[in-house]
């Protein structure tokens, strides 16, 4: 408890100094779009974003209520026409009510949700490939040796280098009526391509460093292969795998912002880009708000993976 108070007060002091320095620093920088955002203007940007969201929500609600009203009227009219058609002995085909979807612009929380959905989609895609492949690499020295040069070569490639190719491939493969947006798939695939490697390498390492003693148990008991993989190799490699997943998600989140900017996927990256494009001193505050949001979410994702890592590591817990 004592040490907690100490940590907390130290962090608080550092934070205050940081905010003060930021303020002084920001006021001294004049950009073409006005002064650099200060803590105060960033805070007011957050408030603006919140009011915007509430306004948008009110508008949407209004729209939906209007639609509900229209729907009621539609079916009343239908009913009248049906009765009249019957009287005249004519055929009557009822028509469904199809409301036009609400076409408001995405609000800030929606953009955050979009970014999170994209990053998790890409992350799960990458994990679904990297973990099994890593297991095979770790269990077979030959495969490991064969794949190692390719992995080492692809690992340092920047996400931006992938983007044009991914865009082309996704555009070619994804038909226009698919119920996933291209920009979403492109961003997710780029995330996947970059967050593949840490999980793959760590899984292979974890599997390869399963204790010889534990493998000997499997050999003496002559356990079937699936038991060996799921009861002995995987549990022992789990801490490594989770450490890899944690790094992967961190990289994925960083890569996502860049990918969204370029692919115009309506998430935080696009938000930053749009704010930059219609630049004014007010939007600078918005960008700063987005930067802080990205940081906070990145931190939360990392904490989440850290907790999972703790839960699954049987020894270091």
């Amino acid at each position: 408890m004592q040490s907690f108070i100490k940590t907390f007060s130290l962090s608080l002091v550092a934070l205050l100094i940081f905010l003060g320095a930021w303020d002084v620093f920001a006021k001294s920088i004049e950009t073409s779009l006005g002064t650099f955002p200060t803590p105060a203007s960033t805070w007011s940007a957050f408030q603006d974003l919140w009011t915007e969201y509430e306004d948008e929500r009110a508008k949407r609600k209004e729209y939906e209520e209007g639609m509900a009203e229209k729907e009621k009227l539609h079916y009343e009219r239908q009913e009248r026409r049906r009765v009249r058609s019957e009287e005249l002995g004519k055929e009557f085909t009822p028509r469904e009510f199809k409301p036009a979807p609400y076409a408001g612009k995405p609000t800030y929380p929606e953009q955050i949700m979009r970014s999170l959905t994209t990053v998790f989609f890409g992350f799960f895609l990458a994990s679904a490939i990297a973990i099994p492949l890593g297991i095979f690499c770790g269990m077979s020295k030959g495969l490991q040796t064969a794949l190692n040069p390719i992995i080492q070569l692809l690992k340092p490639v920047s996400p931006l280098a992938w983007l044009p190719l991914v865009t082309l491939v996704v555009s070619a493969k994804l038909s226009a009526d698919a119920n996933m947006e291209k920009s979403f798939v492109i961003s997710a695939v780029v995330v996947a391509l970059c967050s593949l490697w840490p999980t793959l390498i760590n899984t292979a390492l974890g599997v390869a460093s399963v204790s010889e003693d534990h493998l000997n148990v499997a050999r003496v008991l002559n356990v079937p292969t699936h038991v060996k993989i799921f009861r002995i190799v995987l549990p022992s490699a789990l801490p490594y795998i989770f450490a890899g997943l944690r790094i992967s998600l961190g990289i994925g989140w960083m890569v996502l912002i860049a990918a969204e900017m370029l692919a115009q996927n309506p998430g935080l990256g696009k938000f930053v880009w749009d704010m930059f494009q219609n630049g004014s001193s007010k939007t600078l505050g918005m960008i700063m708000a987005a930067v802080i949001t990205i940081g906070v979410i990145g931190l939360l994702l990392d904490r989440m993976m850290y907790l999972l890592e703790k839960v699954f590591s049987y020894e270091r817990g």
Partner: protein
Amino acid sequence: MNQPYLEFSDVTKTFPTPKGEFVAVEGVNLRVHEGEFLSIMGHSGCGKSTLLNMVAGMSRCSRGGIALKGREIVAPGPDRMVVFQNYSLLPWMTVYENIYLAVKTCRKDLSKQEQKEESERYLEMVGLSHALKRLPREISGGMQQRASIARALAVHPQVLLLDEPFGALDALTREELQEELLTIWEASRCTVLMITHDIDEAILLSDRIVMMTNGPAAGIGTIFDVPFLRPRHRETLLEDPGFYTLRNNVLSFLYQAEGPELPSEPENTIMYAEAYQEQEDKEEELVIGDQ
């Protein structure tokens, strides 16, 4: 009873090293009867584990071969269970799950219910009924070794292989476990090969003690018969003068094997006595320290 059950013929093991072939074990010939309890002794690094690993099937003989019931050993299998020196329980499974995994894999003739009962029975036999749900790291080394022995015995092996099973335990736990192993083994009477550094342990448990010469190219130096009647008890054994004669013979073999620069025989005898006195003092200290 007298046909060879486990037979070593000209067993030789060489390891490739940067400096050329290293002959660890050479020309071992040995016949082990069914139900026999054999101890293997020798100086550290002489090749005891190497020999045991070949029986387990973990490594192949470079020359010669080992046959169990007339069939050559080529791979590991549950008919030759190993109790490893470091217990080798899977740390992410409870004690019970560790034993159950072995029973489930190797005792397919039993129904699921019977497999469960069998796992519990063996854990009870080694006095671990209260620790079924514990993880290996939550129990003491002695308890882990009990679990490891229970796992090995629960699959009903034809040969039980023990590599310095009690080497890492304190003297009191070691004695306790020796007696437990003795009781359990009396009931099952499987064939046992046990590597040990503890002469008293070897005498208490085994029918014969195989003394290995020093490596490289270690072989069997001599074999001591342990004639004491079973069931054996430590107290009665300690009163038997034959026990001390045998003990001295084993000790003198070990000292002889240590190297040519050692003092000649008469001086040696004095040394054993001293060494023995020293060990006794230590054990006494332990008992006193524990109270």
